[in-house]
């Protein structure tokens, strides 16, 4: 199995889907000749041409909405939003049109589209290039939301998303685009949308995370195993909507303690739902209060480096939270 970066794996996934299905096309700002702001589509323009790698004007609402129309009519758009922070102008189209169409038309139409957006902080992006936006969309029935943390899943989930008959949002941990490397299976495969992944087995405590935080949790888990003998099970949620309750609960059954880690703001973030699932359906296994470790409830990730670091969750903060919970 070749080792790849997260972004190379995404690109390979798109490449294979473009080759497989002539209905698949990619649109977004600078996705064509320039290969995208993060180079996610680099080289695809040369291979598939301007008919299938379509540079759009600076207009997120339309990038998404035209995708919805094209999907309704039978194409398979992959819409790129340069940074998740810029998806908000398209919020209405995603929530009011894409999510509701299948339901409101009693199944006459479905919306087979993919929206890709890099998200998350820690790269010096400041207020408007660092946001985590998953919670907004996870509140909306009618959408699927995935966040890969490994190159293999990035490619596999992307391919599943393209083939899915319904709208799938892929939020990509941009801090890990090039720093996360991993083996990617050779040959054709997909990663199903639905199941979570057990990233590390353990019996003392369950740590739930997605995206970049999975890597930080694994790091912290190794540290506390080494230094304190605490064995954490790390669950990579990877499919946020639909959520894999079974895997979440199975791990909790084993450990009785849960730490949910996400870099989005704490209040009403995705971890709040995981916490609710655990207390609802896992009450009998509970050995300690369910803990969330998340970004501060501030309006945005500030620019200044010390402020950004104060905001961001990191392995040290996670290890500290693990130790506290383990000691409960």
């Amino acid at each position, binding site marked *: 199995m070749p080792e790849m970066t997260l972004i190379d794996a995404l690109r390979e996934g798109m490449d294979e889907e473009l080759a497989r299905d002539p209905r698949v096309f990619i649109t977004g*700002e*600078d996705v064509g*000749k*320039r290969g995208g*702001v993060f180079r996610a589509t680099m080289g695809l323009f040369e291979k598939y041409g301007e008919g299938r790698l379509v*540079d*759009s*004007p*600076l*207009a*997120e*609402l*339309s990038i998404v909405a035209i995708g919805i129309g094209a999907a309704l009519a039978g194409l398979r758009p992959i819409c790129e939003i340069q940074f998740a*922070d*810029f998806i*908000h*102008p398209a919020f209405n189209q995603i929530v009011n049109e894409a999510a509701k169409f299948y339901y409101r038309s009693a199944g006459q139409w479905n919306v087979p589209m993919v929206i890709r957006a890099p998200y998350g902080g820690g*790269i*010096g*992006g*400041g*207020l*408007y*290039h660092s946001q985590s936006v998953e919670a907004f969309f996870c509140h909306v029935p009618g959408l699927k939301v995935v966040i890969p943390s490994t190159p293999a899943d990035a490619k596999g989930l992307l391919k599943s998303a393209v083939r899915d008959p319904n709208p799938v949002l892929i939020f990509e941990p941009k801090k890990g685009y090039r720093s996360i490397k991993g083996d990617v299976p050779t040959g054709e495969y997909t990663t199903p949308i639905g199941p979570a992944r057990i990233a590390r087995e353990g019996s003392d405590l369950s740590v739930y995370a997605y995206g970049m935080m999975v890597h930080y949790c694994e790091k912290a888990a190794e540290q506390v195993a080494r230094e304190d003998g605490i064995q954490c099970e790390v669950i990579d949620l990877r499919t946020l909507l639909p959520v894999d309750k079974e895997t979440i609960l199975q791990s909790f059954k084993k450990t009785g303690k849960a730490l949910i880690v996400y870099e989005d703001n704490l209040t009403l973030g995705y971890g709040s739902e995981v916490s609710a699932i655990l207390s609802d359906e896992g009450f009998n296994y509970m050995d300690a209060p369910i803990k969330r470790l998340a970004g*501060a*409830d*501030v*309006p945005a990730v*500030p*620019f*200044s*480096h*010390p*402020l950004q670091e*104060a*905001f961001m969750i990191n392995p040290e903060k996670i290890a500290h939270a693990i130790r506290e919970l383990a000691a409960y």
Partner: protein
Amino acid sequence: MADLTKEQLLEMYRQMVLIRRFEERCEELYAQRKIGGVYLHLYNGQEGTGVGSMFALKPSDHVITAYRDHGIGIAKGADVNRLMAEMFGKRTGVSGGKGGSMHLADRSVNFWGGYAIVGGHLPLAAGIALKSKYNDDKEVVLSFIGDGATNNGYFHESLNLSAVWDLPVVWLIENNLYGMGTPVEVSTGQPELHKRAIAYGIKDFGRVDGMDPLAVYAVAKEAVAYAREHGPALIESITYRYKGHGVSDRLYQRREQEMALYKARDPLTVMEDHLKQLDPGVESALAAIDAAARETVEAAIRYAEESPDPTYDDLINHIYA
């Protein structure tokens, strides 16, 4: 030479030189990682548009722009030390270090700031202008707009609103030929961007040579006067940015020819020529202005370097819910 005195012309030159020197040093400091962030968007090449147009404003008038905002803040009279401190993310910065390069803002001089969500500031500009009309205080809003931003819904809604409500706003499109890597002709059906004014019933002041600050000033003066009395006006300034979209963008190479064309008409040089025509002996005054600008920038860097970093308390400060 329009209606400006020699002193005023020298002041215009001073502002442009200060912006240029400020940004040259920012670029170096960014390379040294003293200034952080994923982006540093320089205004160099475009100084003539910002300075020329703002020269037509009164201090009580308002200015708002996108993320390419250093020069706009300087020309509006924001404190250079505190602007530099913001670039460094220091506590003494105009935005307390929270904003950084793209989000400079200084309420005390009616500089409403830089905005990173492209187009997002345009309806705000209309709202600020609405206040002026509401209170009849005859203040004008000068709103800068990138060519790329004109393709965003915000632009269309704002223009229409400003027209139906006769808002005192000057929409100034800075057409630097590209939005990131996308040339105007690729992104826009009508590449003569000023023509869009006509569709909305806005007074169209046409295209102006953005490399010539005096040409920009002359048309801005008319547009501002018109906006103050009647309602929205629109200007398209043809200009050019010398660097990539951000300084670390290596995306846009192979533009040497185009670049040379514009660099030959650098707004600083154009202004120098104007001044020399007026007064062949002006050279030493220009040199003194340059030296003073360099000194101002070095002092600002010292101020920024000596300023404290923000702390955790600053992360959770300015929160109300």
